């Protein structure tokens, strides 16, 4: 099992966070959040990967064929649904923020300073 996918997952998470911290545009920030979420897809799929295995669909392959883990694929699919929902909510909020604050730069949002 290669360690590369796990490094990629870690890299995606951190680079997404870096983007979030330094973001000057909320659309960019929302995209960065989906980049961090991509780390979870890569990690989950890497966990279920088996060398030389095929897709876990038994309609046209004999039972007992070496397949990759279907559970993590189901988890990833659920995760993608979650991602789509959250991204939609966030982008909707961003559009409204543009209307109400007149900016989408997080540095210029000053309504909630303590």
């Amino acid at each position, binding site marked *: 099992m290669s360690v590369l996918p796990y490094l990629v997952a870690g890299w995606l998470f951190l680079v997404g966070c870096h983007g979030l911290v330094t973001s000057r545009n909320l659309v960019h920030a929302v995209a960065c959040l989906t980049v*961090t979420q991509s780390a*979870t897809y890569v990690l*989950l799929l890497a966990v279920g990967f088996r060398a030389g295995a095929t897709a876990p669909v038994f309609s046209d392959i004999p039972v007992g064929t070496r397949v990759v883990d279907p559970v*993590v694929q189901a988890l990833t699919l659920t995760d993608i649904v979650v991602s789509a929902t959250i991204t939609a909510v966030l982008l909707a909020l961003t559009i*409204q*923020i543009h209307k*109400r604050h007149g900016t989408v730069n997080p540095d210029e*949002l000053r309504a909630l300073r*303590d």
Partner: protein
Amino acid sequence: MVVETLPPLMVALPLLTATVLAAAGRVLPRLVIDAVSLLTCLLVFAGSVALLVATGSRRVVSWLGGYSPEHGVSVGVVFVVDRVGAGLAALVAVLVTAALTYTWRYFEEVESYFHALILLFLVGMVGFVLTGDLFNAFVFFELMGAVAYALTGYKIEEAKPLQGALNFAVINSLGAYCALLGIGLVYGRTGELGFAQVQRALAGHHTDWLVLLAATLVFTGFLVKGAAVPFHFWLADAHAVAPSPVCVLFSGVMVELGIYGVARTASTAFSSALPAERFRPVLMVAGVLTAVIGAVMCQAQSHLKRLLAFSTVGHVGVFLVALGAFEPAAVGGLVVYVLGHAAVKGALFLCTGILLNTRGSVDEAQLHGRGRDLPLTRVCFLAGGLALAALPPFGTGLGETLSEEGLSHAGFSWPSALFVGVSALTGGAVLRAGMRVFVGMGIPPSIQGETSVQGEISVHGETRGVDENRETEGAVRSVPATMLAPVVALLAGGLALGLLPGLAASAQDAAQQLLDSAGYAAAALDGIRAVPPPTPGAETWSLSGLLFDMVSTLLALLIAVTAVYSDRLPRLLRGIVHAVRLPLGALRSTHSGHLGDYVAWLLVGVTLLAIGIAVS
């Protein structure tokens, strides 16, 4: 066996109702929408009461789709309900009922989407406390989150709710992704997702960095929701802007569910690899930091909702310290404390909502003396302040006493001082605001502010509650009974919690079940569901506990009166107060409302958490 069908039903029924309301809400009259959603809540409540009764003698286990385990192995997904799960489900149902009743007249123009969202929120929370599976917990957790973001930004025409919702959504999503990464690692190591299955599978391995990393990531997700420092920044922003009935659910139970998540996974999934003592130092240190920062920041607020939000942060710190002991007596006290806190904090948020509706502001200075002609709200707000300061016999007081005693039996006596301090500071802040707003004590402060671009009045750049839009169509002349009734009911509930004779013993049994990892796994996988018989004679109020509670109440009153009449203090004392405020400015400036800052703090927190769990 009928009880076994309840957990899935308690998730499915509100889910179905929510979808129907979202789809058909436009054609249904408001009365039907209110009645249907309230009825659904009450049915969920009835279900959780049945579960509470059943969990007195056994854990309730239901395998979805009939995939019961054979020889301790199953591919299915399971609900495992013990007393804490059932109790939290009941609390969720009660608070949602209160919020919906309040909404009846509060949000007159509200559309059925609001009811659908609230019911989905109910689904997420109830599912989260009943499930026995890591991934299902994540899904319910995300459902709870996504709905909460939408509810926070419900007033989509205003500037502040949007920013609050955005901060809330990004930080909590990041936390949830951390949790999912952790769950992925756990699955990679064990090939299991059930709490009980993971526990048994991890028992065979030696504990290495992978398990530590997995636990760190899972806990990060829960502690972000639980608003532990330094993950807490989203909380004040979200609470300040969310509709008041939604704040009741946020502060009353959603945040506490984060702590429940830590307690559940620590005592089931990770218990065989990492004994609870491993988590003790990190939880206690995080708890102390959270308690101190929450209580201090609470004192500094003049926006009433932010004030209440930071008081929740302070109490979360106390809860984390009480959990950190992993002792049944202390955790039993924590259970009572959470219930009492939910009732009192809920009532306070609803009182603030009444102020917003009738006076169009939630700013302490602007409202000075303007609450005098709201007699019942005044009594409730001040009583809530006293209850928050742990005045006996409120449930908060009992919870504080029980956790203090549990902790000192376990060899930790220092938390008593911390608990008294948090109660005094947070209760004192609420009482100060109550005295100014509802009694008109002290000199009315003048609001000197500059108007910014968006027409927001900002005083030294801080968030004030001065320019809030009402959540109703026009001002409500007199406060409707549907708005006052939940306030009074919640406070009465908070009072009753401290007086119920069997509550302390029952909470201790619940805590025992929660911490019993072997019993949990046996119930889920081997069908051995019976729980130990109730422990007789758990104590309730003790003399020393009463004394501590009285001390914190008196301190809170002293703090409040000092703050209200600060202009009459001798010059020396004023100098001291001024000196104390200087470092406070630095602390306040970290709460910048800036998304990037919050993400950076989150990464700092993950790192510290990992170090903390690894070295202990």
